[in-house]
């Protein structure tokens, strides 16, 4: 009964005798209600819990505050996006870097309150940061990417001042404060629900929020829908225009498209690229397109499994990938090409950037001959079923093309949940995968994908000490010129050695009704309802 929309109901029942006042209220209400449909919803309300999926990050984003956030800029194609070079206040009104550059002090807003009206203090911030670096899994790994590793780094100076001591000078540290992971929790509230086996209260925060963000969770039916309601006392930014948001899980893409085009939902964003292409041309709805930063579709080859240990074989494969066909048939041009440059040397420090390989079968065959594998060989190409809309047609095209240079490929579809396990085992000889990094720097990407530390994302098991040196140097290099040299250096190696062949940089598409404004692209690929409004 709580959510019953009384006016709509009575308006319908009253039928012809609807008073103009009620009709006005109805349309007003519709203006302040946003209906979003997506394939999957959150499987947890807390990003720190084990196995939290991407939509769960979206919950953390709107229900919890962070110390800082990113600014705004506009892309050439008119789409608004976050600006990773500009940090702006959120919970922290202002901040100051120490003169030696080894710590930063943050002044918290004094009037900020959690959803239960208790004030936000530096104690809560410290508890939240301690939690983020202690729970393990993805949150801790993400904190580490910004050199936020030990609880000792986080210091409560006074009730509204919080200090972070740096372990080393890492340009990613401050950026890392604006990602969804270091959310500020209502520590007193969560502490009421901790147990010996669960000292951080993860079991409770999985289904309950303890935040102070712009929205609170009004109701959540896991697997079905989540409803957000605006938190009227939010002080860390301008109050959102949308009062309520309903996010419903509708697994069928066809249904979602039908619903959107008929006007029954306001927004959706996990659709096949073909649908986005058609919707953008159709004129009934608006599609906002943004290239996903630091994200690449690639074909990886496990260098520890012959014959992929031979760079000539890898180069042959790089010349045998039907790039244009993939771009057309699998991605419907909704990505940026990463092939076909004039050569394989890094033109700048921009990442992703295109390499010099093209679709050239004679060249590929010649390389196979040089490698001594002219007679061909058999192998398996694996891909994540969860990304199948693009991966499957792309893999079929690659399979067809590699057959022309003598490589007989069997396709191997791996369901999403098992994909990570498969990657961890590092046994797949060849795979089509996509990786995107939240912090938009090339050294960040290379650290997780090419470095000899052999993270799970280094699906090629690539180990090259020369490259490692360059990557490590670039991560902490302060001198601009030296930094550029390092970056160009490791990009050059990556292209020459080609343990993985970058294919395209994917776009992030969101389709919405024409009357929705304020959309902004965020690196976490979740909608930010706080900026939206309906005309």
């Amino acid at each position, binding site marked *: 009964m709580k959510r019953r929309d009384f006016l709509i109901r009575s308006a319908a029942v009253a039928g012809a005798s609807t008073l103009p006042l009620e009709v006005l209220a109805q349309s007003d209400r519709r203006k302040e209600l946003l209906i979003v449909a997506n394939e999957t919803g959150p499987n947890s309300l807390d990003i720190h819990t084990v196995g939290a999926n991407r939509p769960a990050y979206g919950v953390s984003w709107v229900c919890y505050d962070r110390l800082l956030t990113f600014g705004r800029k506009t892309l050439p194609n008119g789409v608004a996006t976050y600006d990773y070079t500009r940090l702006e206040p959120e919970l922290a009104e202002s901040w100051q870097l120490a003169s030696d550059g080894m710590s930063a002090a943050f002044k918290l807003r004094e009037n900020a309150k959690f959803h239960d009206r208790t004030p936000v203090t530096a104690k809560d911030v410290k508890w939240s940061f301690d939690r983020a670096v202690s729970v393990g899994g993805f949150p801790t790994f993400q904190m580490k990417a910004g050199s936020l590793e030990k609880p000792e780094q986080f210091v409560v100076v006074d009730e509204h001042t919080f200090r972070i001591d740096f372990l080393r000078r890492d340009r990613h540290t401050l950026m890392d404060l604006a990602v969804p992971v270091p959310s500020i929790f209502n520590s007193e509230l969560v502490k009421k629900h901790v147990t010996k086996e669960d000292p951080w209260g993860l079991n409770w925060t999985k289904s309950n929020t303890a935040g102070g963000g712009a929205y609170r969770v009004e109701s959540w039916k896991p697997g079905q829908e989540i409803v957000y309601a605006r938190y009227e006392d939010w002080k860390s930014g301008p109050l959102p225009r949308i009062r309520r948001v309903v996010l419903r899980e509708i697994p069928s893409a*066809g249904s979602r498209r039908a619903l959107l085009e008929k006007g029954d939902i306001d927004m959706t964003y996990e659709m*096949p690229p*073909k649908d986005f292409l058609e919707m953008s041309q159709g004129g009934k709805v608006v599609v906002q397109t943004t290239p996903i930063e630091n994200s690449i579709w690639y074909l990886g080859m496990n260098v520890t499994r012959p014959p992929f240990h031979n760079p000539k074989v890898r180069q042959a494969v790089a010349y045998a990938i039907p790039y244009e066909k993939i771009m057309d048939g699998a991605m419907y041009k909704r990505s940026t090409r990463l092939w076909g440059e004039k050569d394989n040397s890094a033109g700048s420090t921009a990442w992703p950037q295109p390499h010099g390989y093209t679709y050239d079968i004679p060249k590929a065959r010649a390389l196979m001959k040089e490698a001594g594998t002219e007679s061909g060989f058999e192998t398996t190409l694996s891909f994540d079923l969860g990304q*199948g*809309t693009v991966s*499957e*047609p792309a893999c*079929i*095209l690659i399979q067809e093309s590699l057959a022309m240079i003598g490589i007989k490929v069997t*396709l191997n579809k791996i369901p999403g949940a098992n994909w990570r396990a498969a990657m961890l085992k590092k046994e797949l000889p060849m795979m089509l995968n996509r990786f995107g990094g939240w912090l938009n720097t090339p050294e960040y990407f290379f650290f997780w994908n090419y470095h000899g530390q052999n993270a799970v994302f280094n699906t090629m098991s690539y180990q090259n000490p020369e490259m490692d040196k360059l990557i490590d140097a670039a991560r902490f290099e302060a001198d601009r010129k030296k930094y550029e040299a390092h970056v160009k250096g490791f990009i050059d190696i990556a292209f020459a050695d080609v343990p993985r062949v970058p294919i395209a940089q994917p776009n992030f598409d969101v389709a919405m009704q024409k009357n929705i404004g304020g959309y902004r692209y965020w690196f976490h690929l979740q909608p930010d309802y706080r900026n939206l409004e309906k005309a």
Partner: protein
Amino acid sequence: MDTAAPLTSAATAAARPGWRETLAHVRYVATENPVTLGAFGLFLAFVALAILGPWLAPYDPLASDTARALQAPSARNWFGTDALGRDILSRIIVAARLDFGIAVSAVLASFLVGAALGSLAGFFGGWSDRLIGRLADTIMAFPLFVLAMGIVAALGNTVANIILATAIINLPFYIRVARAEVNVRRNAGYVDAARLAGNSDLRTLAVHVFPNVLPPMMVQISLNMGWAILNAAGLSFIGLGVRPPEAEWGIMVAEGATYIISGEWWVALFPGATLMLAVFCFNLLGDGLRDIMDPRMRT
């Protein structure tokens, strides 16, 4: 020597009609049942397609041509092209072999094993009945599609596993029907006669009882053939069907389903229509076969 069997021994004559009688009977049934005749013709057409497929296809079913992707049916591509530019007609023709193979193998395996088990259970009773009954009950207690999914997910999605999974989930039907029918007949007059004539229990079961059990099984078999193909289609929809780029009617419909809303209706319609036609034809065929075998079931 007169080819017609002498009508001296009623039992033997009734059990073995001459080929002339059979042919006349078939002709009679055919003319009485135009639908069945049609279904049989269709069945033969499908079998021809399955055998001759690769030679009949106008284009290479696996050759992609992204420049010609998602083209409507035209003179060049009678059924249009799919998302990768492959000719849909060719893929449908070639898929007949795979789908028929899956259906026939799965149902045959299921029928042979299930009917054998069920007949044994129905004829001998006792502990064999209880054991086999429990087996059937256990399988039936599972939500069948989920069981098929589980088997394919656990063992890997190869054609062999799809056949295995389909065969397993259809087993209980055959067990039950065979058991029930054999049970009803096991004390019939002719069975006693056969026993008295010196036939062993097993021979009585196999030669005298079992043929009488076949007609009710025919309906089951025909339904199952269709279900086997639809089962594979459902598995493809979830992602556990045959591997790409294999052409199989079910996976083609699953792929085409995403294009219905955007208006490329032919990608799903033609394989779907073919699928429906094949399942249709199996079902109608089963009816016709039953009519031929047991005129008593008709009025």
